[in-house]
């Protein structure tokens, strides 16, 4: 068991990175709207499908190398990001904005989110069937290097590096840019922000687009890593990412990143020690314990107060 430690850690960081990317979307929307967007897992699912269809469109049928690999990767990830961001934008426009305009209670938006989630799942099930669709293999699975005997493979490096870079970009964007300042202002106090000339609708749209972009990237990385797509594929990663967001402190960007990575690690460590059937039990027990001592999550800082 001890000599599995490093391998388990690397594997945990890999799934944790995907959780983190999805968690960022939950956390941003929550920070700005105080809404748990349960349909976010379907935005992720759309990213997985978009990645699959892009691969088909590019004629990927075997492993690629060198420049072709790089180009294909960028195209696949970019297409998934655009597809998910578009879906998130449309969802906000059709499902949430009318509610907000009429000042509907938050509970209505929450139920709408669950409804949208079912709608998107069944739409994809009706269109693409209820069975798994397989991805072609794009990335050769090679051991790049070893850390303490643990094999670090190409696909793991891709996922971890991709996720961390995107999360840092988002953090910089929100902390440093003018648009980011708008997001933070709205998160802190929407009314004052509106009085100061922040266009709330635009901020909300931007928030959904950013969340969608990251979920799309997560979908593409997930697709390249696990090579499967199905209408309900977003469900479990979505729940886990939501957990990660809460663990890190919902509404907090760095919290989502840390929460995601930590949840991935905890799951894999817990599963290794206690047995695979206890993965979820262990992860959620840790969540409960953390919330008992730190009710606002590990970092517990609101999006509005994220420092520049």
């Amino acid at each position, binding site marked *: 068991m001890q000599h599995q430690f490093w*391998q388990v850690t690397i594997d945990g960081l890999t799934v944790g990175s995907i959780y983190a990317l999805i968690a960022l979307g939950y956390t941003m929307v929550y920070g700005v709207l105080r809404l748990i967007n349960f349909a976010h897992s379907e935005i992720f699912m759309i990213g997985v499908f978009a990645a699959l269809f892009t691969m088909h469109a590019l004629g990927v049928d075997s492993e690629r190398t060198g420049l072709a690999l790089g180009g294909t990767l960028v195209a696949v990830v970019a297409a998934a990001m655009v597809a998910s961001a578009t879906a998130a934008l449309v969802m906000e426009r059709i499902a949430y904005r009318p509610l907000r305009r009429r000042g509907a209670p938050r509970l209505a938006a929450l139920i709408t989110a669950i409804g949208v989630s079912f709608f998107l799942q069944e739409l994809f099930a009706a269109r693409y069937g209820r069975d798994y669709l397989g991805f072609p293999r794009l990335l050769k699975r090679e051991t790049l290097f070893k850390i303490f005997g643990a*094999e670090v493979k190409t696909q793991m490096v891709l996922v971890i590096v991709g996720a961390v870079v995107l999360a840092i970009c988002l953090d910089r964007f929100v902390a440093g840019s003018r648009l980011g300042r708008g997001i933070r202002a709205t998160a802190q106090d929407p009314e004052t922000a509106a009085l100061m000339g922040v266009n709330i609708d635009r901020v909300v749209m931007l928030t959904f687009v950013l969340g969608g972009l990251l979920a799309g990237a997560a979908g593409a990385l997930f697709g390249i890593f696990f090579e499967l797509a199905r209408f309900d594929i977003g*469900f*479990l990663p979505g729940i886990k990412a939501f957990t990660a967001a809460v663990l890190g402190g919902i509404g907090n960007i760095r919290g989502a990143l840390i929460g995601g990575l930590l949840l991935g690690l905890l799951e894999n460590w817990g599963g*290794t020690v206690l047995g695979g059937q206890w993965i979820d039990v262990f992860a959620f027990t840790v969540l409960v314990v953390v919330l008992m001592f730190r009710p606002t999550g590990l970092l517990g800082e609101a999006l509005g107060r994220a420092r520049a």
Partner: protein
Amino acid sequence: MSRKGIWRGLAVLFAAALVLAACGSDKKNDEATGGSSNTGKKAVTLAFVGPLTGPNANLGINIRDGMQVAVQEANEKSKKYTYTIKDFDTQGDPAQAPGQAAKYIPDTSIVGIVGPTYSGETRAVLKDLQANQLVMISPSATNVTLNSDPATDVFHRVIPDDGVQSQGIADYVTKKLKPKSVALIHDNSDYGKGLWEGVVKLLDQAGIKVAVTDAVDPKGQNYSVAVNKVKDAKVDLVFYGGYYNEAGRLKKQLTDAGVTATFLSGDGSLDPGFVVSSGTAGGEGALISCPCRLATAELGGDLGAFATKYKEVVNKTPGTYSSEAYDASNILIQGIEAGNDTRPKLLAYVEGLDSYNGISKTIQFNPDGNVKAGDVFVYQVKGGKIVELGKASELAG
């Protein structure tokens, strides 16, 4: 009407259309299964009992489709009877089985049952079937004690029970695969946990130990925990208990991690979906054992003809237990054609059946309802396809 009003009106219309569409499709289903024609032939009904929806519906659907082929052929040939199938969807759940039994038992047009699909749901209704002399032939229920607890006349099955299967697989493993140690991974379901129990016990007696046991989450994608344990234990053989989606995923992740141990899974994994999950390279070499004969058009002969007909009738390729369901249906149909068109007569016919030359095997029932032939077949994934290697007993040599 204001603009807002128009949108609201449209939304209501859309919702109404959805509801109507749903009702419409329901009606169509009823007609398809319950209709009868006025051709002067006598109408008889066979019941399908098993899961058509729910998480374990795949086997039920394969069986239902196999029945459909048999019934369609019978309707084309028969001069005396028109056959229909009535579906009783238990979702494979023992708790739902009695509720369905309360529907099919009073329906006197039903003279025989193909099913129930799973062992638990079978046990839940056996006493009621016995009390009503309603004969059943299960293509797939394999629990060892179904034939004796409770002891009934109505119980029959066309595949060997778990005990016979375990012995067959254990022989194959000890004589052919000869592993030093094995890993046991399951999906934490009753089926998955129980699948290799008998085999592992027999292997233990032969001195082959289980080095590591772990479970995977069927809803999850990441099986690296189990993969690392298998890799670390350096076993020669991995048993997997569970269904094809997870089996394929696990096999792929094992292959990707460089694990070269033989992968052996059971009947729940015998589905083309295995290769979708594993990928062609990831699934290569995986072994799948099943007491069933998987019909493919390439096999030729009776099984090949069945596969062709199946494609025509239900527009799919036959799955696990489709050919057994076809045989079970045909035994009942043969009995009815001989004039045994009431429950007691059909029961007496099946009980007295000497031998039936089916496409999956030659079927002879023991007095307790078990089938005499105890063959287990081994399949292998080769080049993205599942091919039959042969009978486990013959492969063991």
